[in-house]
């Protein structure tokens, strides 16, 4: 996957962690006493308590790891200096060079094919001469 797609994935991951963390914390939070008129809410079970204690830490770790990973990926972006104009100029230069090298290659190919044809003719002549030999008397 190219680096920009990785960066986009990372942004989506950070958004997922950020928005879903809050929801799951709210879901798993123990009931709070809103007023003195209401009775004390029941104590959460040991399992629920463990979840409540660990969940924020894990969420915070996941979020910060995502943020750091994004920073590292941004650092790895191979951005060249000069911007669009420099790139377009470089492309034009490379195209011109590509065309001249292509022409050179075509000339070489044509010369090589010509020589190959000549060699084949020579070989056929040599083979014919061999076949036309008289046997020794």
């Amino acid at each position: 996957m190219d680096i920009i797609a990785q960066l986009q994935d990372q942004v989506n991951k950070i958004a997922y962690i950020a928005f879903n963390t809050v929801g799951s914390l709210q879901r798993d939070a123990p009931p709070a006493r809103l007023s003195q008129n209401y009775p004390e809410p029941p104590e959460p079970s040991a399992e629920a308590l463990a979840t409540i204690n660990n969940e924020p830490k894990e969420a915070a770790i996941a979020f910060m790891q995502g943020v750091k990973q994004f920073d590292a990926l941004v650092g790895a972006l191979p951005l060249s200096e000069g911007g669009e104009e420099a790139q377009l100029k470089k492309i034009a230069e490379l195209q011109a060079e590509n065309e001249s090298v292509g022409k050179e290659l075509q000339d070489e190919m044509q010369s090589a094919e010509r020589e190959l044809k000549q060699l084949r003719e020579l070989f056929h002549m040599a083979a014919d001469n061999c076949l036309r030999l008289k046997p020794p008397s």
Partner: protein
Amino acid sequence: MAASAYPPPPPYYRLYKDYAENPDSAPAPPPPIVGTYTSFGSNYTTDDVLPSLEEQGLRQLYPSGPNVDYKKELRVLNRELSFQFLELSDVLVERPSQYARRVEDMGLILRNMHHLLNSLRPHQARATVIHILELQIQRRKKAVEDIRRKREEVRQLLQESLSALHGHMNVAQQDGRAMDGGMAVALGDHVGRQNNEMKTYGFGAAQTYR
């Protein structure tokens, strides 16, 4: 007609009845569309441009201009996102009813980050073209070198073969062996042209001895 579920085909086919006999009897195809057009009720455009954040109704958080420092702006937005997440946690504890503003701010930052990354795609496309052109030039240069080397090797091989044949001929003549009529030797004398053009050679195959 365009609004029905199964519209009939366009009636243009009638214009091409005599096309096989007379191609000029039918109208020429329409020119390519430029700009916006409608297709199956939706509007499309031939001008493929990434819409700006303002056009999408969003606030741009990084400075606009032709030379945006993408790395710096992405890092700034990343830090801002972490800060807003902390603010959201704080607001949920202290003033839970005011969460919406923080969530909206976080959404705006994320959209700005995505827009910046999308703006990098044309740069990536140009860099890919540059890389492909460089590879192509490298491959072509290598092919030219290989062909030249092989041609040189072939020429040297032929020169050596011809020298060896000359040597055999001289030895045979010195030994007084007759070259009888069964022999077919036709040595060319066009060897050694400076521009490496090789003319016709005929190679002798064998000799008969008296």
